[in-house]
């Protein structure tokens, strides 16, 4: 409260530190309550609790803060690498000179974005349709025209804020998350996607010109080819492949029905495919991600500094899950509070000491 009138004059005393101490030492309040403290034990307990907290953080964010790398695997979040050109400048390393902001490096390091994959929300299904997964978006790489930065901030926040929103996101994110390089896709996911897709894809990509009808069952594209082809050709292939691939995909993926409903099926369908091939690549080469993350991060301090992105890869953590936790906790047991007015304490029985239900509650209006 702003008007507590009692005790302001003494705050000055705290500034004159040294002179105050001898007087304090005589004070009755200076006392040891529970006997001598074993400092080694305090240290042990400290390390244990800190380890507990960091394990908790790690599983909450699916991110290894010690090594500064995302955790691959079927976690709650899926980390996706972005070209830092596609995110607003304030996520990149920069220097502020007066009102001018200068971005430091010529080739800005990639940015990581976390999203909650659909598969998390529908645990029963082995995997979800590719176009529901922002990680599966097409990779028009460096030369591709970058979309205006504004939606980058606004959109990616949405899916993580409320899982419900996530459904709407992938499509909106498509251009933004584009550089979400396929190798960022967790191998597990890539595995899941591998059977239905590459058969169709491989021939399409293996030849410079897309064939009218996908021919059958060549072995999966070698990684070099796939990555070389997909960024450059993806836009060009898009219209050509889409009609061909859409029916082919239909039995294999959940997204088929969504493709029909999509306002622009052509644009959507083909980029998925190239992303799929990329996913296939990731399956075989899981290392590049870690490498790219570490590039230009000399001697980065360990935990918790990921968001700072001071020296190299700007790694953006979205605050979503925090906020959704927040809303989850908000739900109040309304019926309980209604009925609990009988359970309110009498003066004689110290009721509130017990379990929460014994607490005096408010009657709802």
């Amino acid at each position, binding site marked *: *409260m*702003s*008007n*507590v*009138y*009692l*005790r*302001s*004059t*003494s*705050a*000055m*005393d*705290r*500034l004159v*530190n040294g002179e105050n*101490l001898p007087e*304090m*030492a*005589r*004070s*009755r*309040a*200076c*006392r*040891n*309550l*529970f*006997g*001598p*403290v*074993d*400092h080694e034990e*305090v*240290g042990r*307990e*400290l390390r244990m*609790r*800190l380890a507990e*907290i960091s394990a*908790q953080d790690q599983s909450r964010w699916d991110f290894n803060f010690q090594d500064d790398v995302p955790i691959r695997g079927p976690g709650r979040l899926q980390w996706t690498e972005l070209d830092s050109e596609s995110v607003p400048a304030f996520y990149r390393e920069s220097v502020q000179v007066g009102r001018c902001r200068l971005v430091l490096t010529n080739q800005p390091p990639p940015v990581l974005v976390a999203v909650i994959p659909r598969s998390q929300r529908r645990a029963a299904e082995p995997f979800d349709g590719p176009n529901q997964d922002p990680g599966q978006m097409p990779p028009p790489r460096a030369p591709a025209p970058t979309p205006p930065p504004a939606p980058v901030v606004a959109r990616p926040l949405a899916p993580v804020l409320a899982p419900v929103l996530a459904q709407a996101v992938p499509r909106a994110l498509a251009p933004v998350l584009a550089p979400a390089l396929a190798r960022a896709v967790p191998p597990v996911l890539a595995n899941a996607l591998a059977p239905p897709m590459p058969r169709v894809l491989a021939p399409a990509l293996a030849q410079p010109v897309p064939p009218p009808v996908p021919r059958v069952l060549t072995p999966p594209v070698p990684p070099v080819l796939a990555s070389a082809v997909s960024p450059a050709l993806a836009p060009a292939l898009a219209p050509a492949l889409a009609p061909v691939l859409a029916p082919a995909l239909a039995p294999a993926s959940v997204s088929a029905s969504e493709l029909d409903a999509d306002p622009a099926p052509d644009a959507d369908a083909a980029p998925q495919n190239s992303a799929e091939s990329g996913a296939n690549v990731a399956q075989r080469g899981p290392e590049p991600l870690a490498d790219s993350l570490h590039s230009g991060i000399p001697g980065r301090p360990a935990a918790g500094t990921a968001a700072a992105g001071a020296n190299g890869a700007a790694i953006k953590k979205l605050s979503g899950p925090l906020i959704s936790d927040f809303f989850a*906790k*908000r739900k109040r047991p309304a019926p309980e509070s209604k009925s609990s*007015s009988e359970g*309110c*304490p*009498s*003066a004689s029985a*110290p009721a*509130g*000491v*017990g*379990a*929460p239900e014994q*607490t*005096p*509650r*408010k*009657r*709802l209006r």
Partner: protein
Amino acid sequence: MELLCCEVDPVRRAVPDRNLLDDRVLQNLLTIEERYLPQCSYFKCVQKDIQPYMRRMVATWMLEVCEEQKCEEEVFPLAMNYLDRFLAGVPTPKTHLQLLGAVCMFLASKLKETIPLTAEKLCIYTDNSIKPQELLEWELVVLGKLKWNLAAVTPHDFIEHILRKLPQQREKLSLIRKHAQTFIALCATDFKFAMYPPSMIATGSVGAAICGLQQDEEVSSLTCDALTELLAKITNTDVDCLKACQEQIEAVLLNSLQQFRQEQREGSKSEDELDQATTPTDVRDIDL
């Protein structure tokens, strides 16, 4: 030779903002307050080493430190809130309890005060049984376990909202406020109140303050019963619960007064030179 002019309050306070006292703010406070209550009665289910009397010991010590350092009124209840929430989740040996209390004061003071308590000073108050370095390290543990959720709602947040809705003369308000604040501090030392919603403690404290003052002089035009009903309406509290809460507060006050008188008698016998006035001074000013 005195060159220092102390007329001006060294802590500059913002003028009270009327916009922060409207009903929307009150409703929001009422909505979110229960999020910051400790999750369980931890003496039964979490703590093995710590007993209720130990909480009282550490709470009394924390209150003394806050009084002596003239912390803002909110610091102590807020620190107790951190302590309770931490203990509700983390089994703690009793030898760490004072360290934990110091950390909680450290955090609450940083959140609420312009010039916060220093780690060194807090360590001196533990009779140097803990080191400043430990205090700083444990700060991180407490923060982590509280999920950095420090801006808890305290009973103090409700006092102004309640007072402005009472038909009181202006000049009595500061006395009522001061007594209510003392009651709130008293409640924070007693585990009985740890799981009560802050709004109820605030309402009960204001009620107890006015009813207590009423015996000496006319501070309110309302009778005690009418007052309780009005108070209950202000914070949507059940009237019976509120009455019970107010009675509990009065009982705790009585208890602590008796304890104090006993201490005083013992103190005068042994002619202790120590300054007794460091424990809650305000409580003793109240005549029942």
